[in-house]
C-alpha cells in the first residue's frame, strides 16, 4: 500500500483501500485482481462495456447484444477470487474518444494508437471517475508498469516494469499526477511467466488464454473495412506520387497506408518503394526509396510530462517512436504552444504522424506526446 504518511492531494475524497480493477477477462487483469485481494484491498472487479451494438446480422449469428465472452470470463474469475463484480457502460465515451478519434486520424492520413487514447480518456479518466463514484480510492489494471512516489522530487513516477519485454509504459505516458495518485499496477514487479504461473496455480479459468493482440474493437483485424464502415465520408481512391510529385499509379484510399509500408502498394519500380508521406488534403500517398523513409527530427504535440512538471530547457533522453520500437538517444527541447522538438542522434525509420513519441530517463518515463510531423 502506498505510504500513508503522505497527505493526499485529493481534497474531496478520503483515502481508503477500496480498488476498482478493470477486468477484461484476460490473464493479466485477473491476476491483478487476485494480487490486490491478497494484499488486503477491498477489490471490486469492473468490466468496461466499450464494444458497440452489433448489427442485426451479427446478433443472429453470434447471439446476444454484445460480445459477452469477455464479460463471462471476467465474471467467472471474480467469482473464483471472491470479489464483487460489475459491468459498467462506457459505450458512448469510448465511441467518442477512441473509435471516432481512430477513424478521424486515419482519414487525416495519420496512424493513431487507440490504446493510448483509451488509457488517457477511458481507463484512467472515466473509469477512475466511476471508481470515485463508488467510493473507491484506487483504480488498478493489469498493465506492466510501476507507479511510485518519489519523495525527493515530490512527484509520482511512472517506471518501466521489471519484465522489460512486457513493459507497457509507452501507452501510459499521458498519466497525470492526480491519476497516478489513484492508480495501482500490481503486475509491475512480476514477469509474464510468473503471472501465467500464478493464474495456473490459482486455477483461474483464463490461465492459458493468449495475449490480446491488435485493436480490440476491430474484431476481424480488418481495420480498413472498419474505417470504411464507420467513416462519415467516402474513402476515395487517389494517386501515388514520388517525392518530386510525379505520378506513379493509383492507391485505394489513404486509410490503407502507413509510413514505412512496402507491402501491398501494387507499384513496381527498380528498387523497393515505401510510403514516405500521406497528403490527406490532396488524397495523395507519397512513395520513396529506402533512405527516404528515415528521419532524425520530429515535432510532437499534446505532450504530457510525468517526472518533471514541464519541459523548460533542452534535455537528453532516450525516446521511442512506436510501441515496438527500440529506445534511441535523443535531445528534446520545448517549442511554443507546448510542442516539443525531438532530435535523435541517429536517424529513425518511419517517423509516423499520429503515433506517439515517449521519452525515458533510464527506467523512468519523462513524458511523451503525439507525433505531429517529421521535420527532416
Amino acid at each position, binding site marked *: 500500500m502506498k505510504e500513508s504518511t503522505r497527505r493526499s492531494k485529493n481534497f*474531496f475524497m478520503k483515502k481508503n483501500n477500496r480498488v476498482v480493477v478493470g477486468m477484461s477477462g484476460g490473464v493479466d487483469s485477473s491476476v491483478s485482481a487476485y494480487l490486490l485481494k491478497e494484499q488486503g484491498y477491498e477489490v471490486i472487479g469492473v468490466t468496461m462495456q466499450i464494444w458497440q451494438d452489433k448489427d442485426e446480422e451479427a446478433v443472429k449469428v453470434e447471439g446476444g*447484444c454484445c460480445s*459477452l465472452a469477455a464479460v463471462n470470463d471476467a465474471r467467472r474469475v471474480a467469482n473464483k477470487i471472491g470479489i*464483487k463484480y460489475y459491468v459498467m457502460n462506457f459505450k458512448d465515451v469510448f465511441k467518442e474518444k477512441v473509435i471516432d478519434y481512430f477513424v478521424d486520424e486515419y482519414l487525416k492520413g495519420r496512424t493513431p494508437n487507440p490504446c493510448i487514447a483509451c488509457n488517457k480518456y477511458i481507463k484512467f479518466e472515466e473509469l477512475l*471517475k*466511476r471508481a470515485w463514484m*463508488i467510493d473507491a480510492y484506487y483504480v488498478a489494471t493489469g498493465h506492466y508498469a510501476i507507479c511510485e512516489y518519489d519523495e525527493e522530487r515530490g512527484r509520482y513516477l511512472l517506471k518501466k516494469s521489471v519484465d522489460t519485454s512486457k513493459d507497457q509504459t509507452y501507452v501510459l505516458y499521458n498519466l497525470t499526477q492526480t491519476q497516478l495518485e489513484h492508480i495501482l499496477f500490481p503486475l509491475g514487479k512480476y514477469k509474464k511467466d510468473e503471472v501465467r504461473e500464478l493464474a495456473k496455480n490459482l486455477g483461474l479459468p483464463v490461465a492459458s488464454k493468449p495475449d490480446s493482440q491488435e485493436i480490440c474493437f476491430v474484431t476481424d483485424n480488418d481495420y480498413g473495412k472498419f474505417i470504411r464502415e464507420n467513416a462519415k465520408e467516402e474513402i476515395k481512391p487517389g494517386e501515388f506520387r514520388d517525392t518530386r510529385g510525379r505520378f506513379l499509379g493509383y492507391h485505394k484510399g489513404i486509410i490503407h497506408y502507413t509510413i514505412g509500408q512496402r507491402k501491398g502498394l501494387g507499384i513496381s519500380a527498380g528498387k523497393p518503394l515505401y510510403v514516405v508521406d500521406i497528403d490527406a488534403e490532396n488524397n495523395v500517398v507519397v512513395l520513396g526509396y529506402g533512405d527516404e523513409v528515415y528521419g532524425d527530427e520530429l515535432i510532437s504535440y499534446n505532450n504530457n510530462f510525468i517526472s518533471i512538471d514541464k519541459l523548460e530547457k533542452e534535455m537528453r533522453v532516450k525516446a521511442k517512436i512506436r510501441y515496438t520500437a527500440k529506445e534511441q538517444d535523443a535531445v528534446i527541447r520545448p517549442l511554443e504552444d507546448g510542442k516539443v522538438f525531438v532530435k535523435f542522434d541517429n536517424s529513425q525509420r518511419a517517423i509516423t504522424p499520429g503515433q506517439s513519441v515517449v521519452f525515458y530517463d533510464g527506467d523512468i518515463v519523462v513524458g511523451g506526446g503525439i507525433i505531429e510531423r517529421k521535420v527532416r
Partner: protein
Amino acid sequence: MDRIYLDNAATTPVDKRVLEAMLPYYSDVFGNPSSLYSYGQEAKKAIEEAREKVAKALGADADEIYFTSGGSESDNWALKGVAYALKDKGNHIITTEIEHPAALNTCRYLEKEGFKVTYLPVDEYGLVKPEDLKKAITDKTILVSIMFANNEIGTIEPIEELVKIAHEKNVYFHTDAVQAVGNIPIDVKKLDVDLLSLSAHKIYGPKGVGALYIKKGIKIHSLIQGGTQEKNRRAGTENVPGIVGLGEAIELITKNLDSHINKLTFLRDKLINGILEKIPYVRLNGHPTKRLPGNVNVSFEFVDGESLILNLDMAGICASSGSACTSGSLEPSHVLLAIGHSKELARGSLRLTIGKDNTEEDIDKVLEVLPQIIKRLRSISQIV
C-alpha cells in the same frame, strides 16, 4: 448485511405456499400429463385445476387459458400468431414506443417479415392517447398490442377505452399484462381484450411459466409445433410444477388483492413523497395516480444511474435503472426517452418496486441512505 429487495418488477421471490404446492409435482406426481395411467391423470388434473385458477383470477373461461414458458413467449405468440393468422386480411400492427422488449422486438422482427408496425407515442406520463390509436388504425390493421401497465414507470394505460376503439374497427386487441396481474383487478370479459399475456414470477410464482389468454374464436397460429398439448396450440410436455405454481400464485394474490394494493400503495406514496421532500433536482417518472401500486421511478439530475445502483447495492439495497443489457451494464431507458427525457436524464433514473414482503422500515432505510448517496455522487460529478 441485511438486504432490502426493491426490484419486485424484475422478479419476486416464490411464496412458500406456492413452493409447497409445486414440490410434489417434481417427484411424487411426476407423470406425463398426456399418459393414460394414474400418474399421468394426476398431473393432468393438476394442470386443469391450475387453469381454472388462472381463468377465475382473470374472469375468463378455463379453456381460454394457455400455458407458456412466460411473458416473453406469450407476447411472441400473441403478436406473431395473430400476424400470421391474419396476414391475408392485412399487414398492419399497432403498438407503442414503451412496450417491454418482448413485444417491441417481436414487432421489429415482424417488420422484417414484411408487416408494417406503428409505434404510438405516449405523453409525458407515459399514457397512450386514445385519439392517436383511432387515427392510426387503417383497413389493413389486424392487431393492436398495448401493455396494461408499464414495467419501468408503472403507468397504467386506459385499456378499456383503447379496446373499444380497436373493436369499433374490428381489430384484435392484445395486452401485455405481465406487470398488471396481481397489482390491478383484471376482468378480461369486462375489458373485452382478445389476448392477454401474464407471467408467474412477477406474482410470487416460479420463473419459466406464464400464460396467454386467448378469447374464444380468436384466430391465431401456433408457434411451437409438436404434440397435442394445450389443445394442439402449444406443443411440448407441460411444465407441471411450474403450472401448478402459477395457479397457486395467482389464486393467492387475487384472493387478497385489495389489501395487497392498499399496502403497496401506502409504501409507494411514502417513498415517493419522502424522496421528493428530501432530495432536490428530482422528478417522478410516470403518472402520479394512474400507476402500479408498487412502482416508484424517479430521475435525479446530475447523477449517473449506474453509479447510483452500484452504491445502493453496496448499501444492501437492490434497485434498478433503465433496462439491463445481457452483460449487466445499463442503457438509457427507451421508456424514459419516450416520455421526453434527454439521454442524460434518462441515465440518472432509479426504479424501486415494492413487493408484498417489504416493510415500512425498508422504506425508512431507503429514505435515510438514498439522499446521502445522491449528495455524494453529485459532489463528485461537480468536481470531475
